């Protein structure tokens, strides 16, 4: 079961970029690149060496490994539907959030290490939006913990523990918040634009400008894992509202992210940078709403 869980996690991580590309291409009236093109690119990068600027230190070289390692550890705590993840312990919910924060911290330090004006700007933006998205993530996690009384994802998404029908609205709202967090954390439109060539407008991409070869491949893989992790969380939450099974959660995660990101990126412009703050704070406000609704509902049940 654990093996299947890890396999599904990887499958979602690897298929999501392809699905996004395919949907964007179709909406633009194009055929699009191969579904697995990003994997060929990855193979290419893994075969390459790396070039380092002479102003950088060991900080810069270790950051990609820390970033990828953090993403792997965090992803391993995520269950797919009713399957059991590889890592599960009380409090892994908080551990997941801050392991990811550790990875982000490493990348920000590395960006500052290059001494480039562009990367410093990107680091400052990433730090700001990372800090803003944290309350949203913790509140969404807190809502799930509140509903089930557990602080481990493996136990939260256990069909036996999942609460009854009166919490459907809370679960839906939390799933919505988590989908929005996917957009923010994986740097997609409207928060960031992963395809842009304009350094001045980039957030995540600009921090990776000095990386190439293996290092860039590691950052890319970590990005896919992060996207998969959050979309699986969102899919699990959504599935918990009606039927928490792995064969529902896994395709749901893929569709949720692939389709919503693909459609939004084709039809919408990205935010003005200052508006991102409002965007993320709105998500945090929704998370707070979900949290307090859950809390009130639970009080009510306690009284009855």
């Amino acid at each position, binding site marked *: 079961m654990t093996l299947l869980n890890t396999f599904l996690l990887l499958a979602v991580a690897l298929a999501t970029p392809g699905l996004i590309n395919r949907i964007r291409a179709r*909406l633009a009236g194009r055929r699009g690149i191969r579904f697995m093109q990003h994997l060929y690119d990855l193979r290419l990068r893994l075969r390459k060496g790396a070039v380092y600027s002479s102003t950088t230190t060991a900080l810069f070289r270790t950051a990609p490994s820390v970033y990828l390692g953090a993403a792997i550890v965090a992803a391993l705590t995520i269950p797919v539907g009713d399957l059991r993840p590889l890592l599960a312990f009380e409090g892994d919910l908080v551990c997941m959030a801050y392991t990811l924060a550790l990875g982000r911290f490493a990348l920000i330090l590395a960006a500052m290490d290059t001494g480039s004006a562009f990367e410093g700007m990107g680091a400052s933006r990433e730090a700001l939006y990372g800090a803003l998205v944290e309350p949203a993530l913790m509140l969404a996690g807190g809502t799930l913990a509140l509903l089930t009384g557990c602080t481990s994802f493996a136990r939260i998404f256990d069909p036996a523990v999942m609460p009854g029908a009166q919490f459907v609205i809370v679960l839906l709202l939390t799933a919505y918040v988590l989908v929005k967090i996917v957009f923010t954390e994986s740097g997609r439109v409207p928060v960031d634009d992963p395809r842009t060539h304009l*350094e*001045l407008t980039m957030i995540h991409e600009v921090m990776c400008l000095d990386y190439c070869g293996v290092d860039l491949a590691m950052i890319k893989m970590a990005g896919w894992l992060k996207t998969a992790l959050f979309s699986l969380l969102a899919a699990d939450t959504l599935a918990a509202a009606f039927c928490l099974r792995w064969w529902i959660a896994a395709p749901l995660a893929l569709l949720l992210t692939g389709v919503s990101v693909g459609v939004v*990126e084709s039809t*919408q*412009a990205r935010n*003005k*940078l*200052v508006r991102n703050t409002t965007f993320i704070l709105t998500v945090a406000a929704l998370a707070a709403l979900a949290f307090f609704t859950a809390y009130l509902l639970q009080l009510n049940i306690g009284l009855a």
Partner: protein
Amino acid sequence: MNWLITDNTAPAAALGKIPEVSYADFYNDLAAKLADVRYHVAHYFALPSGDRLRFFCLLLDDNTGQVLLASHAMGYHDETALPSLTALHPALHPFERDIAERYGVRFDSMPWPKPLRFPFDRFDRSSSMDNYPFYTMKGGSLHEVNVGPIHAGIIEPGAFRFICNGEQVLHLEIALGYQHRGIEHLFEHTDNLLRRMCLAETVAGDSAVAHATAFAEAVEKLTKRERPAELERERTVALELERMAMQIADTGALSMDVGYQLGQVACEALRTLTINTTQAWCGNRFGKGLVRPHGTDHPLTPEKARMIRRNVGEIARRYAEVCRDIESSPTLLARFEQCGIVPREEMQRIGGVGQAARASGLARDIRTSHPWASFAKCLHHRSIVQQQGDVMARLTERCREAAQSAGYIDRLLELYEQKYAAGPTPCPAPDYTAALAPSSLSFGLVEGWRGETCHVAVTDPEGRIAAVRIKDPSLHNWLALALAVRGEGISDFPICNKSFNLSYCGHDL
């Protein structure tokens, strides 16, 4: 003070007839005239002749359509400093900087005495890009961001130095001149008119037709021969096709910069269709080879005219849909509105021209104020003017102008089809050998898609072109871009930049 009064359709002016006045008179009169919004300077340059340096000024009167010519002179080795007009009217800064850079003329109290384009025969050889006097500010919370010297998208050189407070841009300084090719020198160092035409087409690749038309105009005014009206119409069709292509391309580029994929791909497809139409006509997508003096190598045929009309109608229809989508999409409006504003007063002070000026409410349009060729005859152009001066205004300007151009092309080709449905082509072959008027000055003033494009040709006593002076509208408008991003977030610079889409090589010559 005396000015020689002419207009945009009159033949060349003899050099002797252009009044030569003292600098004090010139200074006072020009300063007084430029205070009135109806006047702006199309060109102001110096030409050495023997041991004298003669300064020519072309002043445009937008109300009456007159072009006023005057000159003043000083000894070539005279080192007296002239009081700077830029101090009163910043619009003159590129001209005075150019004169100072080339001939070492000193302008007193010039507020922005910086090199312009580093020509190889510049007066001060020690001035180079490496010691460009960038503007600096000091402060603990300020940082500088240098973008360039190569533009990552179009691979043209220009250094942009931002002084920022966090995300906010306090000042942007644009240093150009990397791409100086000495194109004016190349004009002087050949006697071959065909080669000169080809050079004119390469002044700015995206305005090939506008520059070629401006130069052809200047040459034809020197020969004083009548042109067939057909030729003028064909050139106008080419010019408007170029305008359509570029306005559509820039709409796509703006969509791309804000991550709006549908607008981007739709505009890219339409732009390709437009330039392919030009290619089907003359064999080159940018209209190179189409404009030649006194004739054309690619006369329109009824089949080609029909093909162009059909394509242009299709493009206009589909482009209107894209524009409607953009103007009704909240996420796009949120990006474009209230961003990169250049108010009308600032645009006027810095001498903005063309569509950027019109988007700020400054109705500078050679097609209206100084009509030439078809615009003086069968078309009566009414400029489209927006008031807001933001990115959205410049985008709307593009949408409307492209639709207007499509209308003109359709009208001109309809006329053509009615007249020449069966008969042979009325356009003659080009004539490169016609004798030019000696010791004269002639100019071609054309409204390209970016704005006022001016070529001035001066002939020597033997009737050979002795000097050519070129002005691309970008020369004025780069400063407008610098002003537009002041106070904006640095991440909005790309869309401000695209909304102007200025030329590097047109500036650098």
